Protein backbone atom coordinates (compact mmCIF):
# COMPACT_ATOMS: atom_id res chain seq x y z
CA UNK A 1 0.00 0.00 0.00
CA UNK A 2 1.36 3.42 -0.91
CA UNK A 3 1.97 5.97 1.80
CA UNK A 4 2.46 9.72 1.90
CA UNK A 5 6.12 9.03 2.60
CA UNK A 6 6.31 6.99 -0.57
CA UNK A 7 4.72 9.72 -2.68
CA UNK A 8 6.95 12.33 -1.12
CA UNK A 9 10.06 10.21 -1.72
CA UNK A 10 9.19 9.74 -5.36
CA UNK A 11 8.53 13.46 -5.90
CA UNK A 12 11.76 14.28 -4.08
CA UNK A 13 13.62 11.87 -6.34
CA UNK A 14 12.13 13.59 -9.37
CA UNK A 15 13.11 17.00 -8.02
CA UNK A 16 16.65 15.74 -7.55
CA UNK A 17 16.73 14.92 -11.22
CA UNK A 18 15.41 18.37 -12.06
CA UNK A 19 18.07 19.97 -9.88
CA UNK A 20 20.78 18.06 -11.72
CA UNK A 21 19.23 19.12 -15.00
CA UNK A 22 19.24 22.74 -13.90
CA UNK A 23 22.92 22.47 -12.98
CA UNK A 24 23.68 21.07 -16.42
CA UNK A 25 21.73 23.86 -18.10
CA UNK A 26 23.54 26.54 -16.13
CA UNK A 27 26.89 25.00 -16.97
CA UNK A 28 25.86 24.79 -20.62
CA UNK A 29 24.94 28.49 -20.65
CA UNK A 30 28.32 29.41 -19.23
CA UNK A 31 30.12 27.39 -21.88
CA UNK A 32 27.87 28.82 -24.54
CA UNK A 33 28.73 32.35 -23.46
CA UNK A 34 32.42 31.54 -23.73
CA UNK A 35 31.88 30.06 -27.19
CA UNK A 36 30.01 33.16 -28.34
CA UNK A 37 32.85 35.41 -27.19
CA UNK A 38 35.45 33.18 -28.79
CA UNK A 39 33.54 33.09 -32.06
CA UNK A 40 32.94 36.82 -32.08
CA UNK A 41 36.65 37.48 -31.59
CA UNK A 42 37.76 35.00 -34.25
CA UNK A 43 35.22 36.04 -36.87
CA UNK A 44 35.31 39.78 -36.31
CA UNK A 45 35.04 41.44 -39.70
CA UNK A 46 33.42 38.54 -41.53
CA UNK A 47 30.20 39.15 -43.42
CA UNK A 48 29.77 35.57 -44.55
CA UNK A 49 26.27 34.13 -44.25
CA UNK A 50 27.57 31.02 -42.46
CA UNK A 51 29.10 33.21 -39.79
CA UNK A 52 25.83 35.08 -39.30
CA UNK A 53 24.03 31.73 -39.10
CA UNK A 54 26.44 30.46 -36.46
CA UNK A 55 25.96 33.58 -34.34
CA UNK A 56 22.19 33.38 -34.68
CA UNK A 57 22.10 29.70 -33.77
CA UNK A 58 24.17 30.24 -30.65
CA UNK A 59 21.93 33.10 -29.57
CA UNK A 60 18.89 30.95 -30.13
CA UNK A 61 20.43 28.09 -28.15
CA UNK A 62 21.08 30.43 -25.24
CA UNK A 63 17.55 31.77 -25.33
CA UNK A 64 16.11 28.26 -25.37
CA UNK A 65 18.25 27.26 -22.40
CA UNK A 66 17.09 30.33 -20.49
CA UNK A 67 13.46 29.42 -21.16
CA UNK A 68 14.20 25.82 -20.26
CA UNK A 69 15.56 26.91 -16.90
CA UNK A 70 12.52 29.09 -16.28
CA UNK A 71 10.20 26.19 -17.03
CA UNK A 72 12.04 23.91 -14.61
CA UNK A 73 11.70 26.52 -11.87
CA UNK A 74 7.95 26.59 -12.39
CA UNK A 75 7.82 22.80 -12.38
CA UNK A 76 9.73 22.59 -9.11
CA UNK A 77 7.49 25.19 -7.53
CA UNK A 78 4.38 23.31 -8.56
CA UNK A 79 5.68 19.94 -7.36
CA UNK A 80 6.76 21.43 -4.03
CA UNK A 81 3.38 23.07 -3.58
CA UNK A 82 1.79 19.68 -4.08
CA UNK A 83 4.00 17.84 -1.59
CA UNK A 84 3.54 20.63 0.94
CA UNK A 85 -0.17 19.87 0.96
CA UNK A 86 0.27 16.14 1.55
Amino acid at each position, binding site marked *: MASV*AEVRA*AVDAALQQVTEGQA*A*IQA*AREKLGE*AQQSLAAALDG*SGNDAVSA*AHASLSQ*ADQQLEECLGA*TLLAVEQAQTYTAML
Partner: protein
Amino acid sequence: MSLLEELGAQLRATSDELPTGLVSAAMERLRSATELLNWVRQTSVDPMGVPQLGNATEHAEHAAAALHLAQDAIAAYLGVLGLAADAGPPQDSDRADGGREGQVAPPPRLEEPQPPPERLGPWWQDRIQKLTGEAPAGADEEGAERVRVDTGELLRRVAGSVRSGDRARLGRDLHAVHASTGLALSAVTPPVLHRLAGDLLGHEPRPEDVPRLRTAAAGRVRSLLPGTPPALVDTLLARICRAPANGDGPAHPADSAVTSSVLTGVLLARLGRDATALDAITPDAGTRRPPSTEPATPEPLGRHDADA
Protein backbone atom coordinates in the same frame (compact mmCIF):
# COMPACT_ATOMS: atom_id res chain seq x y z
CA MET B 1 51.02 27.24 -38.61
CA SER B 2 49.67 29.81 -41.02
CA LEU B 3 47.20 32.49 -39.99
CA LEU B 4 44.46 30.63 -41.81
CA GLU B 5 45.31 27.34 -40.12
CA GLU B 6 45.31 29.10 -36.79
CA LEU B 7 41.87 30.59 -37.45
CA GLY B 8 40.60 27.20 -38.55
CA ALA B 9 41.93 25.52 -35.42
CA GLN B 10 40.31 28.14 -33.24
CA LEU B 11 36.95 27.71 -34.95
CA ARG B 12 37.13 23.95 -34.68
CA ALA B 13 37.97 24.19 -30.99
CA THR B 14 35.04 26.51 -30.41
CA SER B 15 32.73 24.17 -32.26
CA ASP B 16 34.03 21.12 -30.37
CA GLU B 17 33.53 22.84 -27.04
CA LEU B 18 29.91 23.71 -27.59
CA PRO B 19 27.99 22.19 -24.64
CA THR B 20 25.99 19.59 -26.53
CA GLY B 21 26.79 16.95 -23.92
CA LEU B 22 25.58 19.13 -21.07
CA VAL B 23 22.35 19.91 -22.85
CA SER B 24 21.77 16.22 -23.52
CA ALA B 25 22.49 15.42 -19.88
CA ALA B 26 19.96 18.05 -18.85
CA MET B 27 17.37 16.59 -21.21
CA GLU B 28 17.91 13.13 -19.79
CA ARG B 29 17.50 14.36 -16.22
CA LEU B 30 14.32 16.22 -17.12
CA ARG B 31 12.92 13.13 -18.84
CA SER B 32 13.68 10.98 -15.81
CA ALA B 33 11.98 13.52 -13.58
CA THR B 34 8.96 13.57 -15.87
CA GLU B 35 8.74 9.78 -15.81
CA LEU B 36 8.82 9.72 -12.03
CA LEU B 37 6.21 12.44 -11.65
CA ASN B 38 4.01 10.79 -14.25
CA TRP B 39 4.16 7.61 -12.23
CA VAL B 40 3.23 9.46 -9.04
CA ARG B 41 0.35 11.40 -10.58
CA GLN B 42 -1.14 8.65 -12.74
CA THR B 43 -4.56 9.04 -11.17
CA SER B 44 -4.26 12.61 -9.92
CA VAL B 45 -5.65 15.67 -11.63
CA ASP B 46 -2.88 17.78 -10.13
CA PRO B 47 -0.27 18.37 -12.85
CA MET B 48 2.58 18.38 -10.29
CA GLY B 49 4.80 20.32 -12.66
CA VAL B 50 4.72 17.73 -15.43
CA PRO B 51 3.53 20.13 -18.18
CA GLN B 52 6.25 22.60 -17.20
CA LEU B 53 8.85 19.84 -17.34
CA GLY B 54 7.56 18.95 -20.79
CA ASN B 55 8.06 22.57 -21.86
CA ALA B 56 11.53 22.58 -20.32
CA THR B 57 12.49 19.43 -22.17
CA GLU B 58 11.21 20.91 -25.41
CA HIS B 59 13.28 24.06 -24.92
CA ALA B 60 16.34 21.93 -24.22
CA GLU B 61 15.71 19.96 -27.40
CA HIS B 62 15.50 23.20 -29.39
CA ALA B 63 18.72 24.38 -27.77
CA ALA B 64 20.44 21.14 -28.76
CA ALA B 65 19.21 21.54 -32.32
CA ALA B 66 20.45 25.14 -32.41
CA LEU B 67 23.87 24.01 -31.21
CA HIS B 68 24.05 21.46 -33.99
CA LEU B 69 23.06 24.14 -36.50
CA ALA B 70 25.85 26.35 -35.16
CA GLN B 71 28.32 23.51 -35.59
CA ASP B 72 27.11 22.97 -39.15
CA ALA B 73 27.46 26.68 -39.89
CA ILE B 74 31.01 26.74 -38.53
CA ALA B 75 31.84 23.67 -40.61
CA ALA B 76 30.40 25.39 -43.69
CA TYR B 77 32.49 28.48 -43.02
CA LEU B 78 35.60 26.36 -42.65
CA GLY B 79 34.74 25.01 -46.08
CA VAL B 80 34.56 28.56 -47.40
CA LEU B 81 38.03 29.14 -46.01
CA GLY B 82 39.26 26.10 -47.91
CA LEU B 83 39.74 24.04 -44.78
CA ALA B 84 36.92 21.64 -45.49
CA ALA B 85 39.03 18.52 -45.94
CA ASP B 86 39.60 18.10 -42.24
CA ALA B 87 36.86 20.31 -40.98
CA GLY B 88 33.70 18.31 -41.15
CA PRO B 89 31.13 18.89 -38.47
CA PRO B 90 32.71 18.04 -35.15
CA GLN B 91 31.81 14.72 -33.65
CA ASP B 92 28.77 15.18 -31.53
CA SER B 93 29.87 14.36 -28.04
CA ASP B 94 26.51 12.76 -27.33
CA ARG B 95 26.75 10.40 -30.22
CA ALA B 96 30.49 9.79 -29.98
CA ASP B 97 31.28 9.40 -26.32
CA GLY B 98 28.16 10.22 -24.38
CA GLY B 99 29.29 13.71 -23.44
CA ARG B 100 32.65 15.00 -22.35
CA GLU B 101 31.92 17.77 -19.92
CA GLY B 102 32.31 15.35 -17.07
CA GLN B 103 30.67 17.32 -14.29
CA VAL B 104 27.24 15.97 -15.05
CA ALA B 105 27.76 12.52 -16.48
CA PRO B 106 25.09 11.83 -19.09
CA PRO B 107 23.28 8.57 -18.56
CA PRO B 108 23.41 5.92 -21.28
CA ARG B 109 21.27 6.02 -24.43
CA LEU B 110 20.91 9.77 -24.46
CA GLU B 111 19.54 9.98 -27.96
CA GLU B 112 16.60 7.68 -27.44
CA PRO B 113 13.22 9.28 -28.01
CA GLN B 114 11.44 10.36 -24.87
CA PRO B 115 9.89 7.26 -23.36
CA PRO B 116 6.24 7.48 -22.39
CA PRO B 117 5.30 6.52 -18.83
CA GLU B 118 4.59 2.92 -19.73
CA ARG B 119 8.22 2.53 -20.71
CA LEU B 120 9.50 3.01 -17.17
CA GLY B 121 10.37 -0.69 -17.24
CA PRO B 122 13.33 -0.53 -19.65
CA TRP B 123 14.64 2.49 -17.80
CA TRP B 124 14.55 0.49 -14.56
CA GLN B 125 15.99 -2.67 -16.18
CA ASP B 126 18.92 -0.70 -17.59
CA ARG B 127 19.73 0.71 -14.20
CA ILE B 128 19.46 -2.68 -12.50
CA GLN B 129 21.84 -4.14 -15.03
CA LYS B 130 24.30 -1.36 -14.29
CA LEU B 131 24.02 -1.85 -10.53
CA THR B 132 24.10 -5.64 -10.36
CA GLY B 133 25.96 -6.47 -13.54
CA GLU B 134 23.18 -8.95 -14.30
CA ALA B 135 21.32 -8.76 -17.60
CA PRO B 136 17.52 -9.06 -17.58
CA ALA B 137 15.97 -12.45 -18.24
CA GLY B 138 13.56 -13.18 -21.07
CA ALA B 139 10.61 -10.81 -21.31
CA ASP B 140 7.98 -13.55 -21.18
CA GLU B 141 8.89 -14.99 -17.82
CA GLU B 142 9.26 -11.53 -16.31
CA GLY B 143 5.84 -10.39 -17.42
CA ALA B 144 3.89 -12.82 -15.28
CA GLU B 145 5.98 -12.05 -12.21
CA ARG B 146 5.55 -8.30 -12.43
CA VAL B 147 1.82 -8.56 -11.92
CA ARG B 148 2.14 -10.23 -8.53
CA VAL B 149 5.06 -8.64 -6.71
CA ASP B 150 4.53 -5.63 -4.46
CA THR B 151 7.24 -3.63 -2.75
CA GLY B 152 7.06 -5.54 0.53
CA GLU B 153 7.40 -8.83 -1.28
CA LEU B 154 10.24 -7.45 -3.38
CA LEU B 155 12.10 -6.44 -0.22
CA ARG B 156 11.68 -9.96 1.16
CA ARG B 157 12.97 -11.45 -2.08
CA VAL B 158 15.96 -9.14 -2.12
CA ALA B 159 16.73 -10.04 1.48
CA GLY B 160 16.55 -13.73 0.60
CA SER B 161 18.93 -13.28 -2.30
CA VAL B 162 21.32 -11.28 -0.14
CA ARG B 163 21.29 -13.94 2.56
CA SER B 164 22.16 -16.61 0.00
CA GLY B 165 24.81 -14.35 -1.52
CA ASP B 166 23.36 -15.03 -4.96
CA ARG B 167 23.90 -11.96 -7.12
CA ALA B 168 22.27 -13.53 -10.18
CA ARG B 169 19.11 -14.19 -8.19
CA LEU B 170 19.22 -10.67 -6.79
CA GLY B 171 19.42 -9.34 -10.34
CA ARG B 172 16.45 -11.48 -11.39
CA ASP B 173 14.39 -10.31 -8.42
CA LEU B 174 15.01 -6.66 -9.24
CA HIS B 175 14.63 -7.01 -13.00
CA ALA B 176 11.31 -8.78 -12.52
CA VAL B 177 9.39 -5.84 -11.04
CA HIS B 178 7.97 -2.64 -12.41
CA ALA B 179 10.01 0.50 -11.86
CA SER B 180 7.33 1.92 -9.60
CA THR B 181 7.54 -1.14 -7.33
CA GLY B 182 11.30 -0.92 -7.18
CA LEU B 183 11.47 2.81 -6.59
CA ALA B 184 9.06 2.45 -3.71
CA LEU B 185 11.81 0.60 -1.83
CA SER B 186 13.17 4.05 -1.01
CA ALA B 187 10.06 4.77 1.01
CA VAL B 188 9.79 1.37 2.70
CA THR B 189 13.37 0.77 3.79
CA PRO B 190 14.36 3.76 5.99
CA PRO B 191 12.42 2.71 9.13
CA VAL B 192 13.42 -0.91 8.58
CA LEU B 193 17.09 -0.01 8.25
CA HIS B 194 16.95 2.13 11.36
CA ARG B 195 15.36 -0.68 13.33
CA LEU B 196 17.79 -3.35 12.09
CA ALA B 197 20.81 -1.15 12.68
CA GLY B 198 19.60 -0.52 16.22
CA ASP B 199 19.20 -4.25 16.80
CA LEU B 200 22.66 -4.90 15.43
CA LEU B 201 24.31 -2.19 17.49
CA GLY B 202 22.36 -2.90 20.64
CA HIS B 203 21.25 0.69 20.92
CA GLU B 204 19.68 3.49 18.89
CA PRO B 205 22.01 4.28 15.94
CA ARG B 206 24.14 7.35 16.60
CA PRO B 207 26.43 9.34 14.30
CA GLU B 208 29.52 7.72 15.79
CA ASP B 209 28.19 4.29 14.78
CA VAL B 210 28.66 4.89 11.05
CA PRO B 211 32.15 3.31 10.92
CA ARG B 212 30.95 0.17 12.72
CA LEU B 213 28.01 -0.26 10.39
CA ARG B 214 30.25 0.41 7.41
CA THR B 215 32.61 -2.35 8.55
CA ALA B 216 29.68 -4.70 9.04
CA ALA B 217 27.83 -4.07 5.80
CA ALA B 218 29.55 -2.00 3.13
CA GLY B 219 31.78 -4.71 1.68
CA ARG B 220 28.94 -7.13 1.22
CA VAL B 221 26.69 -4.51 -0.34
CA ARG B 222 29.37 -3.62 -2.86
CA SER B 223 30.04 -7.26 -3.70
CA LEU B 224 26.35 -7.72 -4.54
CA LEU B 225 25.99 -4.34 -6.24
CA PRO B 226 29.31 -3.69 -7.96
CA GLY B 227 27.79 -0.81 -9.91
CA THR B 228 26.52 1.17 -6.95
CA PRO B 229 28.23 4.55 -6.44
CA PRO B 230 30.85 4.14 -3.69
CA ALA B 231 29.60 7.10 -1.67
CA LEU B 232 26.00 5.93 -1.67
CA VAL B 233 26.41 3.26 1.01
CA ASP B 234 28.06 5.81 3.29
CA THR B 235 25.21 8.22 2.63
CA LEU B 236 22.63 5.59 3.55
CA LEU B 237 24.53 4.62 6.69
CA ALA B 238 24.76 8.29 7.66
CA ARG B 239 21.00 8.63 7.29
CA ILE B 240 20.42 5.58 9.47
CA CYS B 241 22.64 7.08 12.14
CA ARG B 242 21.21 10.58 11.74
CA ALA B 243 24.68 11.80 10.80
CA PRO B 244 25.49 14.44 8.16
CA ALA B 245 25.96 12.80 4.77
CA ASN B 246 29.09 13.59 2.79
CA GLY B 247 27.91 12.24 -0.54
CA ASP B 248 28.89 13.68 -3.90
CA GLY B 249 25.37 14.86 -4.56
CA PRO B 250 21.99 13.29 -5.06
CA ALA B 251 22.11 9.70 -6.16
CA HIS B 252 20.07 8.23 -8.97
CA PRO B 253 16.68 7.30 -7.43
CA ALA B 254 16.99 3.69 -8.55
CA ASP B 255 20.44 3.46 -6.97
CA SER B 256 19.13 4.65 -3.63
CA ALA B 257 16.14 2.31 -3.73
CA VAL B 258 18.10 -0.79 -4.70
CA THR B 259 21.07 -0.15 -2.43
CA SER B 260 18.75 0.47 0.51
CA SER B 261 17.06 -2.86 -0.06
CA VAL B 262 20.34 -4.74 -0.32
CA LEU B 263 21.64 -3.00 2.79
CA THR B 264 18.47 -4.17 4.53
CA GLY B 265 19.24 -7.73 3.46
CA VAL B 266 22.83 -7.46 4.65
CA LEU B 267 21.84 -6.16 8.08
CA LEU B 268 19.26 -8.95 8.36
CA ALA B 269 21.91 -11.51 7.48
CA ARG B 270 24.27 -10.03 10.04
CA LEU B 271 21.54 -10.47 12.62
CA GLY B 272 21.13 -14.10 11.59
CA ARG B 273 17.55 -13.50 10.50
CA ASP B 274 15.89 -14.51 7.29
CA ALA B 275 13.53 -12.52 5.10
CA THR B 276 10.41 -13.49 7.05
CA ALA B 277 11.67 -11.33 9.90
CA LEU B 278 10.75 -8.32 7.76
CA ASP B 279 7.06 -9.10 8.24
CA ALA B 280 7.14 -7.71 11.73
CA ILE B 281 8.91 -4.47 10.90
CA THR B 282 8.05 -3.56 7.30
CA PRO B 283 5.35 -0.87 7.23
CA ASP B 284 2.95 -2.65 4.87
CA ALA B 285 3.80 -6.18 5.89
CA GLY B 286 2.28 -8.37 8.50
CA THR B 287 -1.15 -8.61 6.97
CA ARG B 288 -0.07 -11.10 4.34
CA ARG B 289 2.46 -13.08 6.28
CA PRO B 290 2.54 -14.98 9.54
CA PRO B 291 4.48 -13.36 12.35
CA SER B 292 8.19 -13.94 12.34
CA THR B 293 9.57 -16.78 14.38
CA GLU B 294 13.02 -15.22 14.48
CA PRO B 295 14.61 -14.32 17.80
CA ALA B 296 13.55 -10.89 18.92
CA THR B 297 16.80 -10.06 20.68
CA PRO B 298 19.79 -10.37 18.39
CA GLU B 299 23.34 -10.38 19.52
CA PRO B 300 24.62 -6.79 19.33
CA LEU B 301 27.37 -5.96 16.89
CA GLY B 302 30.81 -6.09 18.41
CA ARG B 303 32.94 -3.00 18.12
CA HIS B 304 35.48 -4.81 15.95
CA ASP B 305 33.10 -7.10 14.17
CA ALA B 306 34.50 -8.06 10.80
CA ASP B 307 32.67 -7.78 7.55
CA ALA B 308 30.56 -10.77 6.65
